[in-house]
């Protein structure tokens, strides 16, 4: 009997303890820097699109919310003609980011994406593309790739030999 009264008293005293609730729109909760939120497409430091339209993100996506179409410019540089993410399907697993060979697709800390219409959740390339480099400043795929696509010529990057003219090696 006494323990029952003690229990009720303890509950009553909780009136004065601090609240656990975070009053969300007014006070924002702490979001860790590695949070997997809204997906963006980043650019390399020179301002070019990082995405090489390899489709690896679309393949890795467990819910199939990424759609894109590869295209190639006059220098032979690949880019997506369109890049579409349906965020009403996206589960923010981050597999696309892991799959991306060029650090193009990245997940950000933004999570406030509510919309009144479902179609507003389909993001096109212009919605996804940002002007910065995201998590990897300095990295430019075409500077380290062996391919000449208007950024540098073959053999010009730090870790590759200049191309060999095989015909000159002939005896």
């Amino acid at each position, binding site marked *: 009997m006494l323990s029952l009264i003690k*229990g009720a008293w303890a*509950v009553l005293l909780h009136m004065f303890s601090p609240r656990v609730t975070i009053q969300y729109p007014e006070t924002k909760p702490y979001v860790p820097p590695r949070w997997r939120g809204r997906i963006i497409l980043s650019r390399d430091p020179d301002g070019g699109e990082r995405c090489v339209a390899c489709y690896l993100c679309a393949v890795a996506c467990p819910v199939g919310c990424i759609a894109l179409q590869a295209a190639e410019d006059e220098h032979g540089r690949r880019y997506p003609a369109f890049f579409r993410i349906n965020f009403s399907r996206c589960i923010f697993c981050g597999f696309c980011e892991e799959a991306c060979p060029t650090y193009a697709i990245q997940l950000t800390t933004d999570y406030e994406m509510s919309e009144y219409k479902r179609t507003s959740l389909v993001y096109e390339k212009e919605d996804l593309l940002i002007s910065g480099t995201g998590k990897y400043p300095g990295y430019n795929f075409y500077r380290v790739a062996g391919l000449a696509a208007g950024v540098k010529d073959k053999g010009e990057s730090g870790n590759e030999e200049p191309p060999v003219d095989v015909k000159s090696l002939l005896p």
Partner: protein
Amino acid sequence: MDMEIMRQLAVIFGILFVLTTISAGLIWLERRLLALWQDRYGPNRVGPFGLLQVLADMVKILAKEDWVPPFADKTVFIMAPAIIMVSAFMSFAVIPFAPGICIADMDIGVLFFLAMSSLGVYSVVLAGWASDSKYSLLGGMRAAAQMVSYEVFMGLSLMGVVMLAGSFNINEIVEAQRKLWFVIPQFPGFVIFFIAGIAETHRLPFDLPESENELVAGYHTEYSGMKFGMFFVGEYLGITLISALIATLFFGGWLGPVLPPVVWFFLKTFVFICLFILFRASYPRPRYDQVMFLAWKIMLPLSLLNLVITGAIVLLETG
């Protein structure tokens, strides 16, 4: 004469209005208080302090489809929620809110309340029966057993008060407390009545008729919309009724210094409503056989003992 009738009508409709407002407001109060004791905020978005949550809830529940399951016994199914509301409202007829503000100043006030609260059992049992679903039936059966057993000593626990006041008339019981609130000579009676009252309104810790984690929602599993809402109004009216009775019978009702009598009455009632909610926040639900054990093997002998001792003392004093 006409003025007298007009006054009576004004009192009746005033009390009806106040009671419905209270029972709606209790939804908000209960959610806020439970949140308060669980380190949360509760509903605080709709209107000032979330007060308009009540309005939002009402709009929602009234706009819902009035659905009767095809397998249910239609007449009884519809009648059951009405019974609980009617019986709860009827009990308030004998409660004196202040000197002169009492719908029926009956000489058998206490007995009338006990009769009406027994009628409330029908609602729960019929709801469980008419729903024709296993959970409802189990809930209804539990409710019947629980309410019948707790009613036995609920009445007995009040007899001490009746003996001390020498009347069944609730107004006279209040008047008899001018010198000393009955909670002091009748403390065991107060505790027993409170416990019986919790069981009678099937609130936690005695909410076995509707225990969510075993019976879905017990006797009102199949109910939705306003019919479900009426069960809720009935439950909140029950809480208010028991609190009002505790305040009236044990804590001097509208008696009190400085403030007007009505304020004293509502203040005392409010404290006990909060206590009801505090118990809900604190206690787990006992097993069904433990509830029955408590009723028949502990509470009933205790209330009989209380009755006998009070009777002996009253006899000695008058004798």
